[in-house]
């Protein structure tokens, strides 16, 4: 009697443990393994170097943190078709001595395949892109960007207004598409934060 109960309990216990192990194995391994596929990050450009190239010379640069209000977020979504991030945003504002905003820059990040990229975009007082730069990408994917949008400063975006970004074709390329989307997001966020283009 006791032997049968013990055998039954033991069998159930082992089944439960095996199931838990199986689920654990299925759930954790891919997540851990995939991150290593991208290789280490490669930095193409220092942030300050990028900011110098996209914000007015001799302007006073401020690092500003604020939350995008709902109206501004809704406006950006409607006008640019991108969903601005929520929460407190950090960006850079260039002002003259009178306190007028001369330009601004924002960094946006996203996953690219199994890695990450960081794109910084600067705009002038009219909301026109002064420069956009790809700051970093993972080693394995550097070629994807070098062959399409380029690394570091990406000349194709300089001088464009947000609306003109729609003319930028990704030619079906995943890397170009990721960068163009990030540039659009950054421009929309900056426009909403600095009230340019309203």
């Amino acid at each position: 009697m006791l032997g049968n109960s013990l055998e039954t309990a033991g069998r159930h216990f082992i089944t439960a443990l095996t199931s838990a192990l199986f689920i654990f194995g299925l759930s954790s391994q891919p997540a851990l393994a995939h991150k290593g596929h991208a290789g280490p990050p490669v930095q193409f450009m220092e942030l300050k170097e990028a900011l110098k190239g996209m914000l007015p010379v001799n302007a006073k640069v401020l690092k500003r943190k604020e939350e995008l209000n709902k109206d501004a977020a809704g406006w950006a979504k409607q006008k640019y078709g991108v969903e601005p991030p929520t929460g407190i945003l950090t960006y850079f504002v260039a002002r003259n001595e009178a306190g007028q905003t001369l330009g601004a820059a924002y960094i946006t990040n996203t996953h690219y395949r199994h890695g990450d990229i960081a794109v910084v975009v600067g705009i002038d007082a009219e909301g026109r892109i002064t420069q956009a730069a790809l700051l970093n990408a993972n080693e394995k994917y550097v070629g994807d960007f070098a062959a399409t949008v380029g690394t570091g400063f990406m000349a194709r975006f300089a001088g464009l207004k947000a609306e003109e970004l729609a003319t930028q074709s990704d030619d079906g390329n995943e890397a170009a598409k990721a960068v163009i989307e990030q540039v659009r997001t950054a421009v929309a966020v900056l426009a909403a934060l600095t009230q340019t283009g309203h």
Partner: protein
Amino acid sequence: MMATPVDLNTLSTPWKVLISGFLVILGAGYLSAALNAALAVGLSPAAIADHYGNKRVSQEERAAIAEQGFVEEEFSLDDEPAMDEMDHGQHDMNNMEDMAAMPGMDHSQHDMADMGAMQGDDTLPPQVMAQLSHVHLLGFSFILLGIGALTCLTRLSDKTKAILVGTLFAGLLGDIASLNLTRFVTTDFSYLTIFTGTLIGVCLALMSLRILWELWGPTPTQTWDQL
């Protein structure tokens, strides 16, 4: 009270050795985890808050933003490109997911750790918190099932067993929840981490000692119904 299907005291020696070994390894694992936490993070609420808290926006900055809508500080472009001054302007839930990597998780994150300073702080990104959470929770489910099942086989009353297993469940779930709450809500939840971590230790100790006592202790003279 329903009769327990197995009397731990009457198990054969191989079963007793197996269960005892499991409990010893589990206890050693808990102590190792506590030692790792002490060395890597610290065992005080302040240390936990410092490690897991969101340092991208300080408490003072949050207060200032709530009051005046923004905070700003001068940012010199003329300095040498000091990595620790570089703060990527970005949404604090959506930035450089792997840059401030938690050591020991995988190869890419070790490499990413050097880039972490680009953010101006070492706030753990959401991806690392998700990774930490899922690995721990899946492991915890295993621990809860293992020692919980053994506790259910003891001669303790159903009420006591339910309290012990329920408390361990709450402690395990609360532990990981508290880390995420510390990261994403407020660092005050670091006190919950201390509480739940201690609770887990106490539960594991009580359950283990009781199981070991029933395995190797004196043979009970009472019947199931008398207990």
